[in-house]
């Protein structure tokens, strides 16, 4: 199996025509398929800001000014911590004492595009959920810590508040908390125990806004709507993002020394933090959303319960190995050069012997991550897109699998905005006795469907050698006809099979620009606006200049003005 890419000279025309024609006949939907900030639109020659929906500089969040002189970046509202950050900080603060804390009660995140975020204000339901979590967590922690006297409670309070608050609390604030150790004035019980008081302290701390929010007041700048984050606020932002933790004493010290006050200082600290294994959680969190692997479990449950379950006899035994494969692979790539090229095109992976047998690939040495290195050179696989958990997360019944896989690549990986199917669409019957690719082509060849499916289908068909269980085949087993996995990327490159797809995407400008955009969205927890184009461009340039080093991209985003500034939402 060779991996080559060929260029189709008509590609830009295809992309532009496809997007404009997406689901023709639905008023307005097709034209909005490519937004004014869509890299796909840029690739087709549409300059940002010239589009019909361009608002002349005002975005939905409000913005700093109509023009973009000086520092320009999209607005960022004050946000609640992500769920993983709440959990991470509680674990950081309480260590093993947090083992019995019911973290399942931490409310789920809302989302901002692909990624978890909490960009909406907390409503009553969410506040109640935090309250309930705090009450229950406090009850468990009090039992685990087991303070016998007030001195212990005070010591614990003084120890954990700086972690929960993400800063050193003032003595007045500590006093308020210590005051909770006493029975309320209205208390009419016979006794008030140390545990009663301690649980009050912890319950208050765990639902305090100083714990639940990332508060960024910043320093004033010449622009009244623009704030520059203080060194301490920068430390919080970095620590939450990269480690799901409150800033360590060392990081706070760096902030105190002014090492987080400028681009180079931030860049240096971010590089250092990315070298720390604690950054693994950030990478896994990003890629889970980027690759959509959280859907994999649903897919497996569906398959196991479906009428075709017997067609995938080995799958249940290796599903957890598939999840472990992707996690180990991402961790390995990020720790070893962080090459985007390797991410998409590596000729190896990691897994158990059972997974190797399931994939029908040879194993090499046992890696220090406890898994075997799987050799993929001659297996028709390469990179993360060919892994079982990724393919499986975007798979449904055989005929429709191309749609899910193609949509995933188009949306997540290439940032092509696809509108949902028209509400009144009549899905054609699945042709009987026809191989999946041919059947799906027949089902989507109408003018109504073609607009989007001219993009989706070729991308999806490139995965065609991988069945719903993630196994590679060159012949459709039920039809005994050869599988055609060839297609053309929206940007024109001709590709045959998922291995070539990975290699092609890694070198594809639109994919790289999209990758930069995704990291921006994830790191700053918001959707970039026109004003962020300069930072997206810089991040992309950095990715290229570093020979596709993903960590250089992360450093670029976080150390940029966008990463170090905050535009107030209603400015």
């Amino acid at each position: 199996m060779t991996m080559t890419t060929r260029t189709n000279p008509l590609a830009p025309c295809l992309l532009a025509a496809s997007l404009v024609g997406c689901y023709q006949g639905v008023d307005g939907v097709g034209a909005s398929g490519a937004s004014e900030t869509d890299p796909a639109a840029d690739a087709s020659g549409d300059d940002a800001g010239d589009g019909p929906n361009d608002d002349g500089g005002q975005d939905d969040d409000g913005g700093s000014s109509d023009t973009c002189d000086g520092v320009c970046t999209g607005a960022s509202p004050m946000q609640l911590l992500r769920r993983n950050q709440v959990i991470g900080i509680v674990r950081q603060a309480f260590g093993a004492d947090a083992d019995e804390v019911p973290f399942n009660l931490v409310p789920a995140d809302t989302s901002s595009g692909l990624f978890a975020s909490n960009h909406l204000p907390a409503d009553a339901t969410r506040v109640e959920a935090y309250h309930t979590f705090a009450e229950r967590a406090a009850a468990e922690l009090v039992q685990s810590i087991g303070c016998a006297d007030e001195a212990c409670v005070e010591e614990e309070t003084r120890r954990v508040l700086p972690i929960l608050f993400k800063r050193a609390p003032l003595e007045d604030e500590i006093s308020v908390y210590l005051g909770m150790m006493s029975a309320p004035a209205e208390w009419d019980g016979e006794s008030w125990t140390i545990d009663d008081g301690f649980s009050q302290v912890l319950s208050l701390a765990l639902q305090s806004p100083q714990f639940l929010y990332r508060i960024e007041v910043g320093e004033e700048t010449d622009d009244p709507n623009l704030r520059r984050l203080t060194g301490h606020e920068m430390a919080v932002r970095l620590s939450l993002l990269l480690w799901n933790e409150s800033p360590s004493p060392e990081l706070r010290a760096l902030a105190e020394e002014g090492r987080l006050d400028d681009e180079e200082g931030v860049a240096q600290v971010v590089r250092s933090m990315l070298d720390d294994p604690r950054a693994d959680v950030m990478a896994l969190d990003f890629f889970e959303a980027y690759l959509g692997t959280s859907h994999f479990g649903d897919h497996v449950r569906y398959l196991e319960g479906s009428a075709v379950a017997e067609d995938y006899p080995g799958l249940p035994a290796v599903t957890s190995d598939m999840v472990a494969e992707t996690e180990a692979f991402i961790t390995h790539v990020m720790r070893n050069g962080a090459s985007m090229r390797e991410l998409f095109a590596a000729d190896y992976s990691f897994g158990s012997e059972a997974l190797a047998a399931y994939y029908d690939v040879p194993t090499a040495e046992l890696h220090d991550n406890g898994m075997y290195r799987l050799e993929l050179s001659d297996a028709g696989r390469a990179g993360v897109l060919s892994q079982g958990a990724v393919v499986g997360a975007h798979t449904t019944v055989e005929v429709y699998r191309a749609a899910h896989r193609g949509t995933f690549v188009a949306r997540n990986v290439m940032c092509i905005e696809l509108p949902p199917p028209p509400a009144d669409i009549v899905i054609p019957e699945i042709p009987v006795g026809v191989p999946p690719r041919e059947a799906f082509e027949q089902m989507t060849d109408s003018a109504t469907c073609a607009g989007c499916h001219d993009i989706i289908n070729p991308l999806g068909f490139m995965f065609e050698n991988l069945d719903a269980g993630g196994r590679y085949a060159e012949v459709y087993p039920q039809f005994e006809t050869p599988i055609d996995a060839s297609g053309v990327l929206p940007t024109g490159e001709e590709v045959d099979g998922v291995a070539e797809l990975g290699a092609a995407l890694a070198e594809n400008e639109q994919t790289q620009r999209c990758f930069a955009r995704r990291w921006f969205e994830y790191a700053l927890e918001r959707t970039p606006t026109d004003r962020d184009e300069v930072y997206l461009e810089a991040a992309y340039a950095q990715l290229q200049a570093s020979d596709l080093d993903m960590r250089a991209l992360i450093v670029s985003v976080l150390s940029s003005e966008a990463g170090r500034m905050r535009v107030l939402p209603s400015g």
Partner: protein
Amino acid sequence: MRSGRWSRRDFLRASGVFSGAALLSGLMPKLRASAAGPGTRQLFFVGCSQGTDMVTWRPESSDLVTDGLPYQHEPLQDYLQNIAILDGIYSISAVQSDSEGMPPNGGHEGKGALLTGTTVRYAGDLLVYNGPSVDEIIGRRVEQHCLEMGEIPPPMRTLRIGRAKGPMDSDNAPDVPGSNGAWQTFFWQDPLVSAPLLWGPWFAYEALFASFGVGEDELRRLRTKQASVLDALTGELGRVRGELVTEDKDRLDAHLEGIRELENKLDTIIECTPPDIGTSPDHIGTWSNTHMNEVVRATFQVVATAFACGVTNVAGFDVRRQEGRGAELQEDPEYAATYEGVTNMDLHGQAHNMPVSCGANCGSNADATAEDRALARQFYADLWRWTSTRLKENFLDAVPDFVRDNMIVVHASEMSEGGTHSNYNVPVTIFQGDDVGYFETGRAFKWGAFDVFENFRPHDDPGQPSTKLLVSLCHAMGFEDIESVGDPAFASGPLTEAMA
């Protein structure tokens, strides 16, 4: 009464949902009336086995205001505008059941068919349904919805209460998990598996509220603790707010509003203080319907409190067994005189006395006198009417307004006239709270064409299928994506004819 073997804490811990000091928040009433929908409404199914006297159950017309409520519904007069009488529901899955030895009509087996929407079948020697019943479906969806919203689900998915005090008082047929066959229970947990019932209201009380035993004082102390934290939190929010840029203050204000709602909930927690339901009689036979008066009163009180406390959003109770051996209504002073001296109040036997002109259905009671038949009819009419009274006094009047306004009660039987054992035109009465707004209330609906004495035969015009009612109940509870309940081959979609 409070020396129960299973404390409330143990019970909820066993459910995996309870932990220590969170007692109060776990029991907070669902006050989100402004956002009524999935997870906020409550459903109580009250079953009455063996049908009723359909002559005095059926309304004259759809205009209840002009006609007045029929005899059996009269006790609900205060709630007339909340009532919908569905006169013309047929249990589609029961009439299509064809169990061995049975006509194409489920008869008593219609109990499971009514709420599961599936036909009866054999599992070994046991007649079963391909459930779950609609209460279970809704309970699961409430649970799922709460988890998706990041909320704690109600501690109990469904609260189903049987009649017996415990397994030793059960006349060899205890209301315990797995013991109920098709003709014994409305409630089904899964296909082939009947739902577990708590052993009567006194046991349910112990299980749910035992730790309230010291009761109100303990509750108030818990409230004081949580209020103290929320008060401190409000102060802290105020301090933090002062440090924020103007643009962030709105977000904190929204958070503060959430805290205030929470405080209001704490203020209403007293609503779920459990009532004194009295002590359990020494012996309650599940087959005999003895102590029905006390059992029903206590059960309604327990469910009312459970709803107020947010213990569950779905409850079910079967008022009586069809095989009763006792003189049930003699226990109630209002009816005692009517039935004084009547010694053989066998419900099942009385039902077969019901037909005015006996015909083929009279069976062993073919020799019943006109007086027997008249008494039997009166007896069944009074049973339903008595239940309506209990429903009003011990449940509808007992729950707090915010519960009543967001609640649906379904009072129904698996058959219409007990004497015909027919699953056509089964009686269904619905109470709907003011804020639900799903069913059109204050009226009756009349569908189909019936002769109450002959309606066991297949009909050309049977009215509305029960499976549509089941779907409507799901929709009324906020789960509008549910398109069918039970066997999808039966009618699907909601009962649009009864929607507001």
